């Protein structure tokens, strides 16, 4: 877990998971079930969540070496 926390991909993934989650939730509150570009919160939030999942998967599936950074 320590190495994972030092992995920048994990940190970025965690950040966008958090912010993407907040935006998605706000988007659902703004306009439930509206999947349209007009609902920018929902669209941006989902895009962030997809990016976050990709970064988290990368950090877990291709761990950073013990020395040096990722």
């Amino acid at each position, binding site marked *: 877990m320590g190495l994972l*926390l*030092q992995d*920048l991909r994990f*940190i*970025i993934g*965690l*950040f*966008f998971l*958090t*912010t993407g989650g*907040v*935006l998605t939730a*706000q*988007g659902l509150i*703004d306009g439930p079930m509206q999947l349209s*570009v007009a609902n*920018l*919160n929902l*669209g*941006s*939030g989902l*895009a*962030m969540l997809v*990016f976050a999942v990709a970064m988290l998967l990368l950090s877990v599936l291709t761990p950073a070496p013990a*020395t*040096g*950074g*990722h």
Partner: protein
Amino acid sequence: MQLHFVDYALIGIYFLFVIGVGLVAKMKVKTAGDFLLSGRSTPLWIASLAFISANLGAQELIGMCASGAKYGAMTAHFYWVGAIPAMLFLGLFMMPFYYGSRARSVPEYLALRFDEKTRAFNALTFAIMTVFSSGVSLYALAILLEALLKWDFNLCVFSAALIVMAYTYVGGLTSAIYNEVLQFCLIVFGIAPVVVAGLAQIGGWDAITSALPANMTHIWAYTGSAEANPMGVNAGSLILGLGFFLSFGYWCTDYLVIQRAMAARSLGTAQTTPVIATFPKALLPIITILPGLIAIVLLKTGASFAIPLKPDGRTDFDLTLPSLLAHYYPHGLLGIGLTALLASFMSGMAGNVTAFNSVVVYDLYETFVKPKASDQHYLKVGKIVTILGIALSIGTAYVARGYNNIMDLLQLVFGFVNAPLFAVFLLGMSAKRPTGRGAFSGLMVGTACAFFAHGASIAEGKGGWLGFSLVHFSTAMAQSFFIAIVAFVVCFVVTIAVSFSSAARPESELRGLVYGLTDEVSVKAPWYKAPGFYAILATIVTLILNVLVW
């Protein structure tokens, strides 16, 4: 602009993460080299994104959007002509000497290649310029937040400075680099929705080309003469002034960006860093310049959109991007958009402070004050210099408040110093004959001639302070190209002339510093990993982009 709880929450989450990144980076800091140079362990993707993010300060986000609104698509030249070629040159031809010489900074390379006085000149001017630049970033952030959100100026200055100090003090360059990568991602997610929503509302690129005059939507077609385009430059001065003298002077010598490549884990990574960075750089106009064009179309088509005016009644184009954020973004995304702006200001400030650190510790303190001290001593000094750099930045922010043209002054002085510096580097890396006396003389005379060229020319009411004017330019941009050309040429000629009147250094002292006396100027790698392969790809992509918006 009023913010809601969700906007503040998102800003708060971001601040928690940047400090968290600082604490994570702290785990890697054991030595002065770790603190000031990131231990030379940065992988390629991080180094490349940090390389462009360090340059992607808010002046660029705000300034490029404003320029897009004023000058149109030609603003893209700052990327496709004014950055890409120089970045490729840096990676392919200069990084082997910067990295391979084991110099810890750009001024240190000058000491190895030439002499200590040349190093001292570069180190002093760079240190002063970076701390001023950091302060101007802080000032620009504070006045923007004051204008948009009515936050207190002093609160903005001190809270932003304290957050930057927190993560750079504990984590050093690694913390700054990691945060720059995070900030780059945030900037893309924070600004791209403006482009999506804007194009959807106005009807796409076709709507832009039909609403705006042709010289605002073409980048080369109207450069036959300076009068034919809103930027006031012709193709010749664009290619020479911007594309060579100004851009190479910045991208090939400015330690702020080069430091990110020098933090790479190997020579191959260091060479490839600026080359890979050209790909996102080439696409940045989509989120930096296109919003400016969208804003102008919105104004022309009578949409319910407005850009605030300055006290003198002129449109304040610097508020174009914030106005677009306020126009399109619901609460939530508005917090992200503002966080992206905050992030860009703070990355600009942190980048300057970390570069200031390294130069002050290695090139001034260790060289002239206390050589041969222990590594832990330099680590302590590095931390003290971080606090000093932040304090000086705060001071500069208040100076900038009193002199509203300080940003112009800063840009000008950078231009005076960078162009002659590039001449010295070019000669120093490519030929054995240039000497320390020649390089120092060239720098002095070249920089002095830049001042003279500014004082003897006038553009938009600027310059001409010598009391006479030899040349008039229609735009300040054309004037800055002219100054860069004069400074470079004079420095180049003087360096060569004085070098031939002074004794050459023996070749044994120049090994690893000059082309022809360096064994490893390119890394042995399969073709698909070679920097040259990616440079060719980047050139093709850039040419295609130029043709698309010809």
